[in-house]
C-alpha cells in the first residue's frame, strides 16, 4: 500500500435521507477543525431527478454489495491520494428507497491546492460511478419498475 492509504477519509453508506452540506460541515469541524493548512475544498452532490430517459420517475431503490462497496471506495480514495496531495476525503452514499430532490451521493476533497481538490473530487466521483457496486432501480409513474442499465460518462 502506498502513501494513499494513510490519508484520512470517512466513507459512509446511509439508509436514510441525509443533508450533504451538514455532513460536510460536521465532518470538517471534527477532522479539520484545528487545521489552517488547507486552502481548497471541492465537493460534488448527486441529487435524484424526477425524470430519466424521458420517463417520470417516482422513486428509486438503491441496492449495493456492502463488503465490496467499502473496499472499493477505500481503494478509489487511495488511488486519488497517490495522484494528488489530498488532505482529507468524505464520501457519503445513500442506499434504499429514495425520492426526487433527495441526495444520492456526496464526495468532498480537502487539499492545500485547488487543482488537487477539483481533480481529486472528480476522479473519485467518476471512479465511484464506474466501479462501486451500487445499482439503481427506478419506479416509474406508469407503475412499472426498471433497472438503470448503465452509468454514462459525465451524464
Amino acid at each position, binding site marked *: 500500500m502506498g502513501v494513499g492509504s494513510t490519508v484520512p477519509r470517512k466513507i459512509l453508506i446511509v439508509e436514510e435521507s441525509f443533508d450533504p452540506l451538514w455532513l460536510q460541515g460536521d465532518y470538517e469541524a471534527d477532522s479539520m477543525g484545528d487545521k489552517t493548512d488547507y486552502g481548497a475544498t471541492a465537493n460534488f452532490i448527486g441529487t435524484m431527478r424526477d425524470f430519466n430517459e424521458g420517463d417520470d420517475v417516482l422513486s428509486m431503490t438503491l441496492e449495493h454489495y456492502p463488503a465490496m462497496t467499502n473496499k472499493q471506495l477505500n481503494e478509489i480514495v487511495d488511488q486519488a491520494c497517490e495522484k494528488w496531495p489530498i488532505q482529507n476525503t468524505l464520501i457519503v452514499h445513500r442506499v434504499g428507497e429514495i425520492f426526487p430532490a433527495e441526495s444520492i451521493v456526496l464526495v468532498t476533497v480537502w487539499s492545500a491546492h485547488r487543482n488537487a481538490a477539483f481533480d481529486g473530487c472528480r476522479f473519485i466521483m467518476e471512479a465511484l460511478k464506474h466501479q462501486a*457496486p451500487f445499482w439503481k432501480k427506478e419506479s416509474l409513474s406508469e407503475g412499472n419498475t426498471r433497472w438503470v*442499465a448503465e*452509468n454514462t460518462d459525465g451524464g
Partner: protein
Amino acid sequence: MTIKVLYFASLREQLGRSGDEFDFEKDKLSSMNIGNLWQYATSQSSFPEELLVAVNQEYTDQFALLNDGDEVAFFPPVTGG
C-alpha cells in the same frame, strides 16, 4: 471446498435468488475457473459480455481460478452515484 456465490440487482431478480453456496471436491474446484462456476451455478452456457464479477470483493474476470472459501459475486454494470 466451499464457494459462496452472490447475485445482485437485475441478475438477482432474473435468477430468483441472491446467492448460492457450493461444496466442491478439491479436484473439481482446482479445475474450475469463474466462467465454469457461472455455467454451473446458472445453467447459462455463455458468460455475458457486460457481466461483472468480483472474487473476495475485488474485480476479476471469467478466467480467474478459484480457491476454497472464495466469495464470488456476479452482477450487472454498476449504476451508483
